[in-house]
């Protein structure tokens, strides 16, 4: 089965045309919302549309390990966003690929959780590794990856906050970005 439907390109082109034709800049501002409710100890839920997202901490941190942690969701949101934008830009550029996986890894100082030694708990760095399997020319994959990074809301946000290292692996081999 193909990873991207044949009709996907025209859908993305329509999406782009719709945003481009909007004259009032206020109409292109997108707002997202989450209501996070603590249900007990460290266990909590967010309801978005018909979805319920559950979150917990490991037992070692006072939780019951019934779901991913907040930082798991943070890292996942970056990988999800990158995949969405890679698929859209691949469709626009006519790039065919057979697999796409984005690995996201970040570091932060846990002393910051308690302001020990005056530390802040922000993410110090993040590595975003894009792994693509494709028979297309490497140059085309590099181009799509670069545009995906620039047009991804999460990537555009994290580069303002920390050191971000982007890596690209094509058919298992690292390629310069």
């Amino acid at each position, binding site marked *: 089965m193909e990873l991207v439907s044949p009709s996907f390109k025209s*859908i993305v082109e329509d*999406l*782009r045309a719709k*945003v481009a034709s*909007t004259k009032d*800049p206020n109409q292109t501002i*997108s707002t*997202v*919302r*989450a*209501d996070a*409710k*603590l*249900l007990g*100890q*460290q266990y909590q839920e*967010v309801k*978005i*549309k018909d979805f319920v997202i559950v*979150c917990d901490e490991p037992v070692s941190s*006072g939780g019951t390990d019934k779901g*991913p*942690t*907040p*930082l*798991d*969701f*943070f890292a*996942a949101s*970056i*990988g*999800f*966003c990158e*995949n*969405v*934008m890679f698929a*859209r830009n691949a469709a626009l550029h006519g790039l065919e690929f057979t*697999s*796409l*996986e984005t*690995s*996201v*890894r970040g*570091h932060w*100082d*846990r*002393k910051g*959780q*308690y*302001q*020990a030694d005056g530390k802040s708990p*922000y993410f110090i760095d993040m590595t975003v590794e894009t792994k693509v399997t494709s028979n297309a020319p490497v140059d085309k994959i590099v181009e799509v990856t670069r545009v995906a990074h620039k*047009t*991804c*809301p999460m990537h*555009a*946000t*994290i*580069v303002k*906050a920390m050191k971000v290292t982007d890596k690209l692996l094509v058919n298992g081999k690292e390629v310069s970005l």
Partner: protein
Amino acid sequence: MTLVSPELAPKFESMKQRFAQASRAEDLISNKAEVRLIRDQNSEARVRGFTVVQDEPESVSGTGKGPTPTDYFVTSVGFCENVIFARNASLAGLSIDSLETVVTGSWDRRGLFEIDGASPHFQSITVETRVSTKDSVEKVVEVARQTHRRCPVHATRSRATELIFRLVVNGQNVPL
């Protein structure tokens, strides 16, 4: 009834002491997500043995099988704030009858296609902490302030976006 068990206070105190005494190599903690595209706009993430499903709505070429990436981002902000609030409340002896954090974030969709040179980064994020408690408002304000400083997601996004905070205690707005 309090949402956080009293026996957690010594556990969080012990965590605090452990982190304070940890060596530099032990301080740095890593978070990782492996995110695989399933089809079109639908991906699955593997995080510490959990599987998280993401999709886009049908209106933007998805199949609506899960929340969007930006839904997960604002969700992570709210979750992180609640975890840290509960820990600091526990350490400060603040009882919590209910705790809900509402997060809204805005960004420009033109950035998705580099239209008019717009960037798609989050321009502003509002965090509203809603607490019900029998304890003093001053104590809640103190814990809310500590929470904002000590939450990893909050500390990260404060370096990237405009932040707006609101605190609601027992249904009343309180200055932060």
